[in-house]
């Protein structure tokens, strides 16, 4: 039983990680209707930016996070301004932008490999990692931080989307961007804001997750953005809260499954769930009620 408690707790950590990534991914999708696979590239790049500030230049933890966030937000919004917006203006569907996005993911991934090398590097903020234990469960401070941050951001985004003008405007934009523009919303600026906020979120997450795992490598963003896609679809498309929920459920399932299934099948299991959801519940686990309102 105690081993199960640990798996369940690991599930909460992994679920919080996926929720964090899915939040940004879904925020961008809601505003632009693009499956922004390049998000995985932004994730990798910001982790390495944080690594450079923290480990290479030894500027401290705060500088590490600042570097990760700034780089992520900058690259994210540039991808929108230089690629997605012109495509949208040219009447190209978000579907084609999605294919383009694969190209951007490949570019960023391999540029990172050219700069920082293709071997994994150790990411640590120095000093000892504090291990806590509650009954049968072991955890570290990085993990506590991840869970706390995920919970905090989930609440903050809920308030943002339900009660603040900007959040409601972004939802309206995702619902019907033409209509939003007709009633005078600054659609472009709103989308840029979504890219900045969504990318900044992935920047924070990348460094946190890197610190938790202890190593980072150039390829790590590809898997994580696939998991964000799975999370968003099983949660419910076009709804940021549902995507976070989907991420949480995904992390829980993956880790509880380890009880019975070897961990090497995690990826396959996740995609099997994705396909089942796509076929039998395309609105997602939490999407049904909001489908009308979003």
């Amino acid at each position: 039983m105690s081993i199960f408690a640990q798996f369940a707790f690991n599930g909460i950590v992994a679920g919080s990680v996926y929720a964090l990534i899915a939040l940004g991914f879904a925020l961008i999708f809601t505003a632009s209707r693009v499956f922004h696979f390049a998000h995985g590239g932004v994730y990798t790049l910001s982790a390495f930016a944080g690594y450079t500030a923290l480990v290479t230049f030894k500027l401290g933890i705060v500088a590490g996070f600042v570097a990760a966030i700034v780089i992520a937000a900058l690259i994210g919004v540039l991808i929108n301004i230089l690629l997605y917006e012109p495509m949208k203006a040219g009447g190209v569907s978000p579907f084609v932008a999605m294919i383009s996005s694969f190209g951007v993911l490949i570019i960023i991934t391999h540029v990172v490999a050219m700069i920082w090398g293709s071997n994994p590097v150790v990411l640590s903020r120095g000093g000892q990692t504090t291990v806590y234990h509650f009954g049968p469960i072991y955890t570290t401070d990085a993990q506590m931080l991840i869970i706390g941050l995920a919970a905090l951001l989930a609440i903050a985004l809920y308030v943002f989307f339900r009660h603040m003008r900007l959040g409601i405007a972004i939802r309206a934009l995702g619902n019907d961007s033409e209509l939003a523009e007709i009633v005078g919303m600054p659609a472009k600026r709103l989308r840029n804001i979504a890219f900045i906020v969504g990318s900044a979120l992935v920047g924070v997450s990348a460094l946190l997750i890197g610190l938790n795992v202890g190593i980072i490598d150039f390829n790590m963003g590809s898997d994580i953005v696939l998991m964000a896609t799975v999370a968003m679809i099983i949660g419910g498309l076009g709804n940021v809260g549902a995507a976070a929920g989907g991420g949480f459920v995904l992390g829980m399932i993956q880790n509880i499954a380890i009880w019975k299934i070897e961990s090497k099948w995690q990826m396959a299991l996740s995609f099997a769930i994705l396909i089942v959801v796509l076929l039998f519940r395309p609105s997602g686990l939490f999407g049904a009620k909001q489908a009308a309102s979003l």
Partner: protein
Amino acid sequence: MEYFVYIGTLVAIYTTLTISLNLLVGYTGLISVAQAAIYGVGAYVTALVALHLTSDLLASFMLASMSGVLVSLVVALPSLRLKNEYFLIATMGFQAIIFSLFMNLDITGGASGLYGIPHPVLFGHTIRSSFEKFLLAAALAVVCYVLALRITHAPFGRLLRAVREDQMAVASLGKSVFQIKFSIFVFSAVFAAAAGTIYVYSLTAIDPVAFALDESIFIITLVIVGGTGSLNGSVLAAAALIVLPEAFKFLAIPEAIAPQLRQVLYGLLLVFFTRYRREGLIGEYRDVLK
């Protein structure tokens, strides 16, 4: 000399893969990212049969093709019920699941793959030289090209384009859109799987990484760069994009970054063509990607 034969074989294999995928992407409007997985299934089936049973070439092609049909059933039956983005994501899911099987099953040799695969035998003659293997690869590419040309010029080809342009119209004429899509998916899969056979016999080894999602995206890049709905474009793109990065070898580019640079180049081409030239080098319509 050996080097040029090797490059030629690669070009022929990718020509087959690109044409087979173009039938889906360019002609029918189905953007599948599972092509590398299907290609891999053909390759693994060939390798396992050659190691444990027979390396008879015709038998290998038969079994690989049958495995292609089988995978089509698994991948296409559910995926074809979905549209656009969701079709793509479902095929991406299957790509990931199948890749995970290559990577983790015992019979497929896991991450190290399979090696020491015997040379193929055709009518009692063992094909050893890499030049003969190049001829095989080229023959498959030619057969694939000719059949694709016939299909796309036949009435069925018009049906494919009609499905791409307006499914409702096709359905309203009493044709089964699903049946049309499924038939072309199976055809495409058979050739992708057969390309897998050629790949295995050319390398006499197999590595799961060759069948990952990146590879599927690379084949899509070839289709888009060549031109959606253009068979000649597919041939041109396969040749150009395989040969071009080989030029890095003759420039003073360090070994360590050459493979990365190659990927960056492919990524740039995918972005450039989807952004500025959606009809590709020789495309039928600009509107296939709209």
